[in-house]
């Protein structure tokens, strides 16, 4: 349970990091909090020859407002997101989700970038980013932006090119008075989701005016349940409509069978989590 040997680099700028990645090639990996990569290295499931530590790069940190969006530096930790007043006020679903990730020690060190960039279907933030319609900023040979909704292509397979690192996550601020919930079923605190649903919605006159739904760990990638969200839009979230939305969400899942349960169960749980997330989001929504 100790890793193989590697060379360690600690660049002090994004440019330097990108330069190193390009020079060192495919067996080089970036590390932020390291709490996804290092456990894999200890089990020798990953054996990078070079590690590029992003922890010393100031420009990768920070949470700031940029017009109608909030920009979060890629190496911002879960703990920093939990403590952020700005996020608590403007995008409270992030804090709720962070508190459901891993445990206190991991949250002190684990980063948002680390949680969204490697394509691990078990991670919680990707579905939330998809739900929020976030954009990832990346830098490699060039700078580019990718929509979260188009970023995830398979298990551990993303739109990120070799030589690129995610530098920031850009999130459009949901309307004031929006309802939100991240509902996560797990075997115990710290576990990956058996199934989880992220919901952000707005209501007016008792009816849903906008709705966005993300689902965690019930497919090879996080899912954007677009059709389910359309079904509830315009409704009062009455039981029959929610039931239809649940069926629609279940239909897009294809979970793995594992210790958390057989695929059939996890699909059903995606539906249950969605129903509960919709109910809680509605309670929180203004009007």
């Amino acid at each position, binding site marked *: 349970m100790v890793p193989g040997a590697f060379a*360690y680099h600690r660049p002090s700028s994004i440019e330097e990091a990108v330069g190193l990645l390009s020079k060192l090639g495919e067996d080089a990996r970036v590390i932020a909090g390291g709490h996804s990569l290092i456990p894999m290295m200890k089990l020798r499931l990953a054996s990078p020859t070079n590690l590029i530590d992003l922890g010393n790069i100031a420009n990768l940190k920070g949470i700031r407002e940029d017009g109608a969006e909030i920009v979060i530096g890629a190496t911002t930790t879960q703990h920093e997101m939990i403590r952020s007043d700005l996020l608590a006020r403007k995008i409270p679903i992030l804090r709720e989700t962070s508190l459901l990730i891993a445990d206190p020690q991991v949250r002190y060190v684990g980063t948002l970038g680390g949680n969204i960039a490697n394509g691990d279907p078990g991670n919680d933030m990707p579905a939330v980013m998809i739900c929020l319609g976030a954009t990832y900023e990346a830098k490699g040979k060039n700078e580019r932006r990718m929509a979260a909704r188009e970023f995830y292509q398979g298990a551990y397979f993303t739109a990120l090119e070799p030589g690129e690192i995610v530098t920031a996550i850009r999130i459009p601020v949901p309307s004031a008075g929006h309802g939100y919930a991240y509902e996560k079923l797990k075997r115990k605190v710290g576990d990956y989701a058996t199934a989880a649903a992220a919901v952000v919605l707005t209501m007016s006159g008792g009816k849903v005016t906008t709705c966005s739904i993300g689902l965690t760990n019930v497919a090879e990638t996080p899912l954007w349940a677009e059709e389910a969200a359309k079904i509830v839009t315009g409704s009062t979230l009455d039981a029959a409509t929610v039931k239809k939305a649940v069926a629609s969400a279940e239909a897009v899942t294809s979970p793995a069978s594992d210790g958390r349960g057989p695929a059939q169960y996890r699909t059903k749980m995606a539906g249950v989590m969605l129903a509960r997330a919709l109910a809680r989001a509605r309670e929180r929504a203004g009007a």
Partner: protein
Amino acid sequence: MVTSQVSMTVNGKKVEQLVEPRTLLIHFLREQLMLTGQHIGCDTSHCGACTVDLDGKSVKSCTIFAVQANGAEIRTIEGMANSDGTLHALQEGFREMHGLQCGFCTPGMIMRAYRLLQENPSPSEEEIRFGISGNLCRCTGYQNIVKAIQFAAAKLKGVPYQEAAE
């Protein structure tokens, strides 16, 4: 074997040693600095027996390389006693409340509780349980650990400890 120099401050003392990049902080602490208070209990960063306080954060020292801790300020169980040699309120509380049996999870538990009480000096029982959810114990069933932390919280605030009615 390529090694590099790391330096950090551990329990108030500056240390400088050679490490491989892959040397985990837990091994650096235990085998190079001979601070064997923190322990290894798992392979997958779940048990928390290796928890130390690093730059004001509770960190699992088995999941961080010593090189990543270069320049850091670290506090371990060996550095918890007060400057006059008396035990920290947490160390006292764990004994008073029978919050340990085999002792293996105890240093990590105390180091986590230390930071927990810095974050939140008056935690509820629920907040304590959530706050130590990254530390596993096989012996105590956690109930007396909660009491130990409540005892310490009271002592650190200078108020008498009230054991909750059963």
